[in-house]
């Protein structure tokens, strides 16, 4: 029994799911209507958008890196998609351009970080800044255009999947989660990712090529950030280069709450999903009890610290020798 408990306590993703239930119960008792279908659906949509944006952050952190370019790539995809589609280009072509463009941006950051041994924090920050500036110059700061109706429908609050009362985004995120678990557990890529994250030197001796892995992983991160950007376009209805800004810290928080360690080699996407749901639930509760937007931000900071202090602490230096 004791070993079962220690095992459970060691599984950070599981604790995060306990957090999801706990916060839900708290919200349902404090706020009338919190457990209504409408509110749950809204939270699930927002959590799905965050989880998709945080998928790449999870992979990058398993690798031992961090991707600060996610908000900029979200903005890039959001604006470029809207402008090109609004300019009359066919949807499939626009989609291809945006996703390939994002992949190239990510691959560039990842390859440079690994090949020249520069901290990815700096590289992704610099590359992201350039990308956002280019988008702004291209649109002269006034983006136009909109999403095609089927994307609006895909993420809409009023959408439905057959008889089920939620838009296609929810099952899409579910399938994405299962696919990610499969890739991380059952493919060579997944094995290499954990190997490189837990011990870069040993992995290199085992013929894992770090530059290729970093380029691939950052490209995947950018692709999913771009996807989130396109979905956000459908969700909000109009494009803006700054739409991704909150996602910089939210993706990092979701991944860390979900139990993925920044030092690499540990964690997974299942936890990130829980982290994303907890974050959205907490936000909803805080707004629901009548805090101002600014106080919500502060309270969220306190809660993130409490959560991570409870189970996400680093080892003492004496245990690292």
């Amino acid at each position: 029994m004791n070993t079962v408990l220690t095992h459970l306590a060691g599984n950070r993703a599981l604790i995060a799911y306990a957090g999801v239930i706990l916060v839900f119960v708290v919200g349902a008792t404090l706020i009338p209507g919190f457990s209504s279908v409408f509110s749950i659906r809204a939270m699930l949509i927002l959590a799905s958008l965050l989880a998709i944006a945080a998928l790449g952050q999870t992979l990058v952190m398993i690798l031992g890196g961090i991707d600060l370019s996610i908000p900029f790539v979200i903005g890039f995809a959001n604006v470029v998609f809207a402008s090109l589609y609004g300019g009359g280009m066919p949807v499939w072509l626009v989609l291809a351009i945006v996703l390939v463009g994002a992949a190239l941006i990510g691959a560039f950051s990842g390859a440079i970080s690994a090949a020249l041994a520069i901290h990815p924090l700096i590289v992704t920050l610099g590359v992201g800044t350039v990308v956002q500036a280019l988008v702004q110059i291209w649109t002269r700061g006034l983006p136009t255009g909109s999403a095609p109706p089927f994307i609006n429908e895909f993420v809409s609050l009023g959408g439905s999947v057959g008889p089920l009362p939620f838009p296609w985004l929810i099952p899409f995120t579910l399938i994405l989660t299962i696919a990610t678990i499969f890739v991380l557990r059952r493919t060579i890529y997944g094995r290499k990712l954990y190997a490189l994250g837990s011990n870069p030197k040993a992995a290199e001796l085992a013929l894992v090529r770090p530059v290729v892995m970093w380029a691939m992983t950052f490209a995947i991160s950018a692709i999913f950030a771009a996807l989130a950007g396109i979905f956000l376009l459908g969700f909000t209805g109009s494009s803006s280069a700054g739409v991704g800004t909150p996602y910089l810290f939210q993706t990092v928080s979701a991944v860390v709450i979900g139990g993925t360690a920044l030092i690499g080699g540990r964690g997974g996407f299942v936890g990130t999903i829980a982290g994303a749901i907890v974050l959205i639930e907490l936000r909803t509760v805080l707004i629901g009890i009548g805090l101002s937007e600014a106080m919500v931000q502060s309270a969220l900071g306190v809660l993130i610290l409490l959560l991570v202090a409870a189970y996400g602490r680093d080892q003492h230096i004496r245990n690292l020798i």
Partner: protein
Amino acid sequence: MTTKSVRPGGLARFFIERRNTRLAALLFFILLAANIWLNPARFMPHNWGSVLGLAAPLLLASLAMTIPFLAGRGSIDVSVGPLMGLINVIIVKGLIMAAGVTSPLIIVPAALLIGLASGALNGFLAAILRIQPIVATLGTYLIYAGLALTVLPSPSGSVPAWLAALAGPWSILPVGLAVLLWLLVKRLPYYDLLMATGSDDRAAYTSGVDVPAVRFVAYLLAGVFASLAALSLTALIGSGDPNIGPGYTLIAIAAVALGGVGLAGGVGGMTAAFLGAADIFLLQSMLTAFNVSTFVLQMAYGAVLVLAVCLNSEKLKHLFKARAVPR
């Protein structure tokens, strides 16, 4: 191959010891020359005070950002920017507007105290509680930014004349205080412990260095330098503004990386931080002289940042050396 061990003196040693800063120094002289050529009047001696006043918030924010980086193993303080904003609104709204306090004898110590308190909080969370530093200071980032907006939801207020003068003729005061403080720290045994911890914390720990305590003090120092940055910022904008502070976090990280401070720890110092910050400031000032849009400005410093860290990379230098001397 023979290796000669000649001890170079003076200026040569200054540059050899600061190998990572050379690029930033070169860039500094080029940008300074370009700036002076484009706008000679602005860089005349009688304007030095206000030019330094313009650059001071970024210089000091970069210095604050540098100290945790020196301590290594992912130490970082992303809350520097919002802390500047929070101190700014507390001074303007809390002290000047609400309590009517205008004396520097209260305002300056109050700013320093808030900085120390924030440093202690960050240090406790990151070094003692051992929450991963970027997450810990991200938490305080959100707390400070939210508090600043709660204290003062929109820009307003004004500052007394002595404080405004800190962005003009007396801008040397906060910067000079920071320089003196850093020179003092460099004289203390603590500096060696900090650099040892940053270079190899395991080796430092096995030699008896109290690594968590060293990191805790690094966050304290960051808080103090951030509070000086907040004073310069308040002097510069001459009012309270809750939105301006957080932006300094990312620019300061860029400046520090540009200056050649190693994010892995143990490499860099005040010279590196100041040169990196000065480069960004001069770049901004030069492009503003050309009347370009803020977007072009943003692109330029993103590009310079990526280019500079690439050129600074040890690995790139090794690659070139391997080419030049075939084995």
